[in-house]
């Protein structure tokens, strides 16, 4: 079956610095896939290449079998790609509800309407509110985003990505910066993601990785070191070396 997301020979260089080296990667439909690796391995760079925020030096990116390498970020989102950022990228001055409504409005294609005010607008708002209820932040719907604690803001970040109804969801360290008392909700949400979405999660927290992932890819210095089922990865001495090495050098 065609992978939901695939990269072939993906490369990115900044002058002499190679941040992505010949990455051949496939994400199956319905996957629960984790991307791990030491700091600076290029995991976020990889995500940025997939979403189009960074332009690849060479190689191809396919979404659902379609070559999207030359498409803009917006076009890729329209083809079912959604992501969260490592550090929240939200509309700080708008309310929680407005944040999510913007995303759903774009998805529905009504965001460019200049003259309709109510009407098609209401359904969008209702869907946004329902999403907030599912994530249990509905009672803060009208609060300005910057007033919320970071952990709650992170939920809005995830809500926006979910609101896009993506076929491929890229989560960049979803629990990062969230105090452990609040991360339970996030972990629950990730557990309950619809089965048909292909999910790639970047994470450092190994508990989360092993709880969630059915497949793991290890990225080191911009290249894939190895890939396999969690048990294989956990047992492989090379992985421990990469992480132990990191711990020794701090």
């Amino acid at each position, binding site marked *: 079956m065609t992978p939901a997301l695939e990269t072939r020979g993906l490369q990115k260089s900044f002058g002499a610095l190679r941040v992505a080296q010949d990455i051949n990667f496939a994400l199956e439909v319905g996957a629960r896939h984790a991307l791990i690796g030491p700091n600076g391995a290029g995991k976020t760079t990889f995500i940025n290449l997939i979403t189009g925020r960074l332009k690849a030096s060479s190689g191809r990116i396919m979404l659902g079998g379609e070559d999207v390498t030359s498409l803009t970020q917006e076009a890729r989102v329209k083809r079912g790609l959604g992501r969260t950022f490592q550090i929240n990228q939200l509309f700080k001055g*708008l309310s929680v*509800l407005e944040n999510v409504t913007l995303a759903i*409005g774009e998805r529905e294609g009504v965001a460019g309407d200049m003259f309709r005010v109510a009407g098609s607008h209401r359904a969008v708002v209702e869907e946004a*509110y329902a999403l907030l209820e599912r994530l249990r932040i509905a009672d803060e719907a009208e609060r300005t985003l910057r007033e919320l604690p970071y952990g709650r803001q992170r939920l809005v970040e995830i809500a926006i990505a979910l609101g*896009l109804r993506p076929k491929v969801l890229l989560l960049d360290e979803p629990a990062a910066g969230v105090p452990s008392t609040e991360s339970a909700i996030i972990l629950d949400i990730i557990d309950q993601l619809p089965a048909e979405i292909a999910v790639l999660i970047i994470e450092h927290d190994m508990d989360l990785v092993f709880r969630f992932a059915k497949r793991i890819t290890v990225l080191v210095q911009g290249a894939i070191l190895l890939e396999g089922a969690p048990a294989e990865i956990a047992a492989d001495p090379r992985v421990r070396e990469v992480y132990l090495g990191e711990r020794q050098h701090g």
Partner: protein
Amino acid sequence: MKKLSPIDAMVRSHRLRWWEALPWLAAVAGYFLYPDHLALGNQIFVAVLFALSLDLILGYAGIVTLGHAAFFGVGAYTAGILAVHGWHEPMTALVVAGAIAGVVGLISGLIILRTHGLTLLMLTLAIVFMLEELANKASWLTGGADGLQGMSVAPVFGAFRFDMFGRTAYWYSLGVLFVGWVFMRILVHSPFGRSLTGIRENVVRMHAIGTPVRKRLVTAYAISAVIAGVAGGVLAQTTQFVGLNVVSFERSGAILIMLIFGGVGRLYGAFLGAPIYMIAEDELAKSDPVYWFFWLGLLLVLVVMFARGGVLGVGEQALRYLRRKRS
């Protein structure tokens, strides 16, 4: 009264509030209370409309421009040149003025909105200086430094002559302002307007939710150019003169200051800032221009340092404080 659900509150946020009638009541009252100052009133209405157009692109979309007078000037000169060369009917000429300004806005927006930050600012400056120099040198068309003279504007609706007391001018520009305001209000409350706010707040996020960012910005820029052009056209028609200053950096700066004083991105900043500025200028600049300039500069510095949202911003903060005290 039962509190609205968040959904209802959002869906109804565009509903008219009672205080939105105030500016119009004040404008109508002004006609009867200050019959000797109708010309000033006319200038104020033009400035409000111009400031509204700038608010769309600056306050809502977040694009800092020092060159908005370019579109104002294009509109003014278009309306003026039409009136000199036989097209005397004002309202159709106004439509043409707005359209041509819009085309200039569309083309320049397509070109320059690929850049951002200082480069974009410089490009907007380059455009306004380019057009000013062009207007200056093409004196066979524009009258150059002496200004465009010989405009002949026909009566509005065929019946209301532009008289020398400024009565027709007052209602004409107020009417155009009203239409412009209705349009802006609908636009700002529409999903399009909301997405402009999103672009201003976090353009990275907007890209990541599939927004065609550049297309929205260019559209907003072109629309704002149309409105600015209409404002320029009204000025030309009501004063029956077009001087070089309509397309100057000084005019861009003045309208920017008016908007800042009132408060950007809140639609009504224009309605507060423009009258305050122009009335103050009318009173102070005549008696002592140096004095006016100095205090204007000082006020600007103070607003930037302590009251960035302008009058409306300060008002909002006060309201929030009072609401918190009550609860």
